[in-house]
């Protein structure tokens, strides 16, 4: 390919992020990774995510927060106090120098400071302004407060998350790890901004877009909502009432996770032919011919007994060995990878997925790269580390005033 050097996809695009925590910072990061210039406006005390861990050895330090460093690399930091009029003037003078603003302040934050969209657009009519709110600006819940946990559960994703359980009364719906609802809102916001950019290419005009975190999460749900829903009864969370062999936290004839001597392996020998090959892989144990496991239906009926026998076999073995032998026999399976496993994974290493960035205070850190490559080349090349609080204030203000 001829343009492997030309990897700055959004070169020349200028993004101002006024973000707190996760969603807006993640949205802006999606632009930074593609080569846009991203300036992060922080209050004097910094983005609150600077106070959240994980921290090295559990010791708090505003330049060493794992959460902050992970979603703010490739950005510049400017500190302004939008509660005082001098800084608001500076903020207004910055606006003509940006194409896009992404923010997730509380509802009313900008109106209360006389920085409503009407004023903003009179200063820069081509500016695209993207707000992220948990429930949007309108509707009965618009004044409600929510965070990641609340949105995940409210969206139906937690209810459908792990499928049916033995006893729904003691095993509540649960959320995924990390801040997934915030991530989804952020990704939705950056996509909304990208759509607006295409509109602007045609009209030259900016716009204001308000992304709802709840709407964003509902669009993510498939099995939990769409499969059975849209007018039908909700999916059961009670295993004994589950008719089919759905995938879930519990095991089924379709597959599940097996305990090994070094963790777990996820296997899915669902078709009869795959099941045959799976038995071969186990060295055709004595129970292989058992009528109880002869068909997919029978395996579902006797799933508990089956899983006990499988676990007996897997327990002394390594999840990596089982996964490798399974894949050789074309059976879908993978180790249940931990973060450490992933950092050492041969496939991700081959594809150079992780990006190493040196940070002034926190040392050399590994970041997930973009999930795609351009013409077989990795895109984020030479991306800078997360900024120290306010370290570009002077530089940005000099440029804008």
């Amino acid at each position, binding site marked *: 390919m001829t343009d492997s050097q030309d990897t700055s996809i959004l070169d020349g695009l200028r993004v101002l992020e006024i973000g707190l925590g996760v969603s807006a910072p993640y949205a802006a990061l999606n632009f930074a990774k593609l080569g846009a210039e991203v300036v992060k406006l922080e209050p004097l005390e910094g983005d609150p995510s600077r106070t959240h861990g994980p921290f090295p050895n559990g010791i708090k330090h505003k330049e060493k927060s794992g959460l902050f460093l992970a979603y703010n690399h490739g950005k510049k930091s400017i500190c302004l106090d939008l509660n005082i009029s001098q800084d608001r003037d500076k903020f207004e003078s910055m606006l003509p120098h940006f194409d896009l603003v992404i923010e997730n302040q509380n509802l009313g934050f900008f109106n209360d400071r006389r920085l409503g969209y009407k004023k903003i657009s009179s200063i820069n009519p081509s500016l695209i302004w993207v707000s992220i709110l948990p429930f949007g600006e309108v509707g009965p819940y618009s004044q409600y407060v929510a965070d990641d946990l609340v949105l995940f559960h409210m969206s139906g994703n937690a209810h459908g998350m792990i499928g049916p359980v033995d006893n729904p009364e003691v095993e509540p719906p649960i959320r995924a*790890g990390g801040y997934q609802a915030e991530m989804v809102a952020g990704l939705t916001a950056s996509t909304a901004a990208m759509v607006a950019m295409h509109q602007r290419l045609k009209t030259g005009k900016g716009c204001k877009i308000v992304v709802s975190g709840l709407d964003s999460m509902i669009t993510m749900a498939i099995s939990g909502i769409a499969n059975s829903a849209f007018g*039908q009864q909700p999916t059961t969370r009670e295993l004994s009432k589950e008719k089919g062999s759905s995938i879930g936290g519990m095991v089924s004839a379709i597959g599940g996770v097996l305990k090994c001597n070094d963790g777990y392996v996820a296997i899915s020998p669902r078709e009869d032919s795959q099941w045959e090959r799976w038995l071969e892989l186990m060295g055709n144990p004595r129970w292989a011919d058992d009528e109880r496991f002869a068909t997919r239906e029978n395996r579902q009926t006797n799933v508990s007994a089956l899983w006990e026998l499988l676990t007996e076999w897997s327990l002394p073995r390594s999840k990596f060995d089982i996964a490798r032998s399974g894949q050789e026999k074309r059976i879908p399976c993978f180790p249940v990878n931990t973060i450490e496993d992933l950092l050492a994974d041969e496939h991700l290493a081959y594809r150079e997925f992780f990006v190493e960035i040196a940070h002034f205070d926190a040392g050399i850190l590994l970041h997930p790269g973009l999930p795609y490559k351009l013409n077989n080349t990795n895109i984020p090349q030479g991306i800078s580390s997360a900024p120290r609080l306010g370290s570009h204030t002077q530089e940005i203000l000099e440029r804008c005033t």
Partner: protein
Amino acid sequence: MSTVEIIPSGALRHLRIIDLTRVWAGPLGTRTLADFGAEVIKVSDPRMPLSRVGKVNNKLNRNKLNIALRLDKSDGRDVFLDLVSIGDVVIENFRPRVMRNLDITYENLLEVNPNLLMCSMPGFGLTGPYSEYPAFGSTAEAMAGINSMIGYVPNRPLQTGLSYADPVSGLNLVHAILAFVRRRAVTGKGSFIDLALADSPLGTLGEFFVANSATGYEQHPNGNRHSEYAPHGAFRCFGNDQWIAISITNDFQWEQLKDEVNDIRLESPDYDDISGRKVNEEAINRIVEEWTSRKDAGDLMKQLQQKRVPAAKVSNNLDVLNDPHLNRREYFSHFRISEENIEKYDGQAIPGNQKERSKWFPMRDLGEDSNTILVEYLGYSDDKYLSLLEQEVIS
């Protein structure tokens, strides 16, 4: 009042997408492009009807035209090349060898369309040791580290029924396509994008990679709990399988919650700060749940929200569908399937710049647009169309 102009045919009305994707991630991505006015031509295999059972296909394939075409026949491949010559973007999510066997590569396609943008999105990307591995949602999410962080207890990871990697990849696809279309507008250059489905969710676990590479930190499943805050979880409410999610992350919220629960046992000075509440999480959870278990989840949500406490009734699919907030916001989309039957689907979470709702249309049948596309778009004669039909190249 909306501050976004309604664009009659959407912000992406200039884009034509040739869509070979199937299952979920790809179709969700191309549906998003279609909702904003891109003309998406879904290329289906005439031997594989689109099931309307379970409604997942209906959900994912609205606003797309459908041509049924045998890519494995040489005449079919020729039709495909003609189609690519009038398109802007080709998107596919087969396993890598499928496209190689069909002899449909980016290099071939450039010959008929030199500015083409193409995206391949197999499970694990086009290169590397796992590239030919099958990517079922349930095992791919194990690979992607998702399972190792879901569960009630640290040492027992659970699978999800959500195939969570897919929708995240679908959105990443849209973001990438639009970035590269913009780049093409500036530089005139097409591009080839190799998007690995399993890589997308890894981008949402950044803090754990950063922390592990700094100090070996490892995150374990912790149910609904938070590593720093408590109470933080789903608490039982009155009724069968009814729950409320409550998240207390500062002292103000704690004081508000305490006022509502009104239980002397919560007055302990040990619970006055964040770290004290985390240490005593079990005891606090028991007291809070004693209280919530006597309450209706919906009423309790309103009560706590009035006091600015982040709380929500844990919704199932039907709750979501009937939710007053979502309905007031006109989040859902409605399609009249027959005289008496209107189906309700999820809407488009990305607001603004959409194709006008009155122009949205439900999933087209297999090959419903084959004639239009061949005759009107590609200028084939009726004879040629009929002959392709007869040879079962199209349907």
